């Protein structure tokens, strides 16, 4: 299994290599991308971890915004998958704090929530979310969003 490589752009390339189709010209010593899954649902964390790990990500988890913020201040991940409704600190509060922190503009933040209304989407984007994924998600829909934030940056 090869690590996820940001500079290759499309996730599809790496996905093919996982399926056994060798991707040509990959860096011989790539640094895996890191991802922080922030969700109070252990089931969601488990499903997302499996998908990210399958792509070669280095995966960490947080069960609320406060834990996630501590982990980010310790070391900024490349991607944050972010739930909205969580105890202690919710996703939007986390995002606002993250973007104000030193180096906090770097991670690509993908909101991942059951909130589907215009108001939530609009507030997420206005506060610096890079993408917005509505639950339920599966490997394909998550990778499509990942693809967007990787190619866009």
């Amino acid at each position: 299994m090869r690590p996820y490589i940001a500079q290759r752009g499309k996730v599809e390339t790496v996905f093919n290599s996982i399926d056994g189709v060798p991707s040509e010209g990959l860096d011989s010593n790539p640094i895996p991308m890191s991802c922080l899954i922030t969700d109070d649902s252990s089931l969601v964390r488990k499903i997302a971890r499996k998908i990210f790990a399958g792509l070669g990500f280095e995966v960490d988890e947080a069960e609320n915004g406060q834990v996630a913020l501590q982990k980010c201040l310790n070391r900024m991940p490349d991607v944050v998958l972010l739930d909205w409704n969580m105890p202690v600190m919710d996703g939007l509060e986390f995002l606002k704090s993250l973007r104000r922190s030193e180096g906090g503009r770097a991670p690509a933040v993908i909101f991942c929530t059951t909130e589907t209304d215009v108001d939530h989407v609009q507030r997420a984007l206005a506060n610096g979310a890079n993408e917005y994924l509505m639950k339920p998600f599966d490997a394909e829909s998550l990778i499509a969003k990942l693809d967007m934030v990787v190619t866009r940056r």
Partner: protein
Amino acid sequence: MPQEEIDKARTIADSAIATLRRLEVPPTPANYAIWYEYHAGMSPNLQRTIDVLISNKAVFDESTLQDLYSTFFSSAKEAQAVRETSVRALQTLQDIAGVADFAHHDAQAFGVTLRGLASKDLGETLDNLRSLIENLVLESKRMAGRSEYVGLRMRESAGKIEALERNLEDAIRDSSLDGLTGVANRKSFDAAIRRTAGDAMNSGDDLALLMIDIDHFKRVNDTWGHQTGDAVLRHLAQTLQKAVRGGDHVARYGGEEFTVILPHTDGPAAVTVAENIRLALAREPLMLDLTPPLTPITVSIGAACYEPGDPLAEWVGRTDAALYCAKREGRNRVQLN
């Protein structure tokens, strides 16, 4: 207004109308304004929000559309954008009137009517656009009868607007309910299955789906006529609604096929609900005075549970496969996948 700008406005208007159709959005003035603005590309925030909704396969139901409008068209900040949109929307209408000016003198009268309409103060809400369109359709119909000089472009436009009107009526009528049976329609099912599966993914709770198909429905229609067929559909819909709990979601999936979404329900419990439906149909059959008498109506039912992380289409596919299996095994039975 320079020809170049007219062409641009027309292109945007055409794209807006095409998108409304594709997304099955009722072409009300407010919705037209939203998609005109979306295609005009003047409001990046509106564009990004709509792109998120589309990429997540969100259903553009009435409340979503209202929220889009109130979020992006009601605040003072966006008022300018709306004014511009309404001006541009009217310019496309005036463009049509412009073509008429060069036609027969009947067409000139038509053009005058349009310009009269267009110069009215519309405010910032575009609420009058619909009546404008209505008048335009009316006028263009009158025109078609009297003049041979109506330009091709104008006829195209009038046809497009008329189709828009028809869609509007259709869309409003069946926004979330099935017109024949009164239960939720397919669009409502699509939204409900996403909502309930999202909740189940968060909570880890069970979630089951039933697909219910009337056995030999074609024979009912062929033997006793479509009115009887419709009565059978209505009777099944009522039976389903009586058999389920408050949080369950009954929908007509299409044709003679219905669905029931069952939150907090595992496979064996879903089979129990399905068996209750099957038995209720046998216990309380549809009573109609027909010659020959109506044969007993039975259903085949497929059931399957949601696996969080799997695509929704896969789940629906498994339920459908179970239904197919129940049919193949002789009908009037329940099959769990």
